[in-house]
């Protein structure tokens, strides 16, 4: 019973993530890949993403420390980050990445800085939510 309740809670949390725009259909693709042979596939991929994306964020921060900014490099790193985020369905993160790239293209320093903060925030927020979700899903199994 408790398990059922947990399952329902997990399902509810998951749906919220979609409804609130944190995740898009690409996440569904990941879920579809999960099977008995890979029961924790989604969680593993998300973990992988967060490890790798942390590296990219650091890289951007380092690049931002050097003035004048190398917009091309920033755009490149962000492009990578965006690709990664989109592959797990991180919708809001992806959106901020796109915005950041737009600012990079026009060399808008302030826009970039602002957006980068947004990227980091969304990135962290999603991480928390997904961790909670996976936790719940694990307990509900």
């Amino acid at each position: 019973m408790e398990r059922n309740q947990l399952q329902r809670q997990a399902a509810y949390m998951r749906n919220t993530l979609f409804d609130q725009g944190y995740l898009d259909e690409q996440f569904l693709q990941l879920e579809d890949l999960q099977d008995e042979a890979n029961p924790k596939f989604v969680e593993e991929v998300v973990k992988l993403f967060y490890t790798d994306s942390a590296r990219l964020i650091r890289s951007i921060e380092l690049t931002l420390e050097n003035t004048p900014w190398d917009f091309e490099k920033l755009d490149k790193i962000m492009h990578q980050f965006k690709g990664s985020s989109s592959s797990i369905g991180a919708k809001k993160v992806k959106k901020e990445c796109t915005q950041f790239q737009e600012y990079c293209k026009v060399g808008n320093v302030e826009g970039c800085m602002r957006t980068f903060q947004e990227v980091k925030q969304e990135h962290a927020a999603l991480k928390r939510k997904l961790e909670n979700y996976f936790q719940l899903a694990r307990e509900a199994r």
Partner: protein
Amino acid sequence: MDLGVKSQPFTSSNASWKSGDVVPGQFPAGLKVLVVDDDPTCLRILEKMLKNCLYEVTTCNRAEVALDFLRDNKNGCDIVISDVHMPDMDGFKLLEHIGLLMDLPVIMMSADDSKHVVMKGVTHGACDYLIKPVRIEALKNIWQHVVRKKKHEWKDKDVEHSGSVEEGERQQKFPEDVDCSSSINEGNWKNSKRRKDEEDEVDDRDDTSTLKKPRVVWSVELHQQFVTAVNQLGIDKAVPKKILELMNVPGLTRENVASHLQKYRLYLRRLSGVSQHQNGLANSFMGPSDPSFGPMSSLSGVDLQALAASGQLPAQSLASIQAAALGRPTSKSAVPLPLVDQRNVFNFENPKLRFIEGQQQQSDSSKQVNLLHGIPTNMDSKQLATLHQSTLGNMNMHVHSQTSQSNSLLMQMVQPQSRTQLLNEINGSHVSNIPSSVGQPVLSRAIPSAVLGRNGIENIHGPQYTSLSQPSTSADYSSQSTEFSGNTFPLASSSGMSRGLLPNYDALNVNQNGNQDWRLQNVGSTFGPPHHSNIQGGLDVSRSVLIQQPVSSSQKGGQSRIPSANKAAFSLAEGFTSIPNVGQQLNFSASDKSLRSKAERLHETGFQNGLFSERYGQEDLMSALFKQQQEGLGAVESEFGFDGYHLDNLPV
């Protein structure tokens, strides 16, 4: 792979899946896919998706590692999926290397869906382009690229085996076959089936002869020796027996050499064809910065001069020359064309890359280049003349095979020859002042860039491209005025165009051991005209143009690209001419208009003999090439004695 088989595409006929690879009846299960992406998340996801599609997956996060894997495991891969933006190597460069190395279908992918990047994929010869995030549905059908490629290879082989008499017919048939609605594979299947039946016979014959021989692995060194030998003999005169003697490799048989030669020719053809449409190709042609190209450049210089002088040649004569050239399929031209491409390809990414080894050994590439250069120089004017005549048709075929990059190398080789040829011809006809000894740099410079651009494009469009086409192009150019570069293109373009027509498709893959490992064999083979729904359509089309058969496919793509033809022409011209200066001097802007009109004109004339049914393909290719050209021009060096192209100088 026996495409001809009704229900089960994969049976173990000569060139099909190795029996161990795919379980008959379960195709495409077991398809070997290599995924290259520096993003671990994407890599992991793709791996899982492909596994779910029942494919055999190998993952790589570095391009170099991927190339090593491919080199070391000839049969280890059927198709490659690669990311565009990677830190250690540009995805397009990897694409080029793979194309040169082993003619495998390559799918590009990226989160970047901007048109120019996708176009780049097309021009570089990718058989498809996926936008990230990739869905499993998109991966389920990638097997079609493998099959398509195989199919075209067979067709090529078929053509070769059928003999020159039928070549023309066949070629004309090919386009039709290929034309079968891109989206309707069944149609293609049927065609391929028929063809396959024919080919099977031939293949069987080959198989019989090579059955007992152990498979030869054409390592880079071995191939280098091979190319050296071919160059020494002259692409026209390079017969397996003599090549074998020159190579002096114990254990190597004439059959091994013969099949490799076929592939090589196909490759060259593809290169020339590819270069025509692709800017990159053009670049590659012109590009090779290796000093080894010196002799070639001198030739090219002369050619340019001749071309410039011959600018007065009426377009018609050009067209007629082309027609003539096309009409006479010969295998001679095969060699010259590819030269240019190869070089170029590498040039703009990695000047010294060898086509076999790719970036790793620059020295090797330069060696290769040298070899290639050698080819043209070996040819005497007579040869050139002959080449000229026949190359148009053949060259296209041979050269195109590979990606544009490889073309550059080949093209370069061809160009010198054609140039001299042109010179001879031109001199005979119109140009009387062409100083044969004009320094290359002089020549190239002399030629107005505009001319180059224009001519190049035009030539490209016309099927006449083959090395021979140069002379013809000069004729064309003459009308233009000087676009020497145009001449060079013809090589590429014509080769591209003629690909379908010339019987020399057979090319590279012909079974080395009688058993085609079609995965690898198609060195020269190019992707068939893929009819992909998305970009691929475009990609395929251009690809197809390059490849021998794809006439139809190119057509598809061609249409849309016509407007950019001019550009492509330019690039092609540049690439082809292999004269760095020429490229630089191209006045793209100026000649755009003329190019366009010319290209169209040529296009028309070029296709007259119906060899290329797809005009569009040409144009598209040309534009694509053109663009590449623009990008890659800068990289060209003065192999030919000209200063390489300098991207900076490109008017583009």
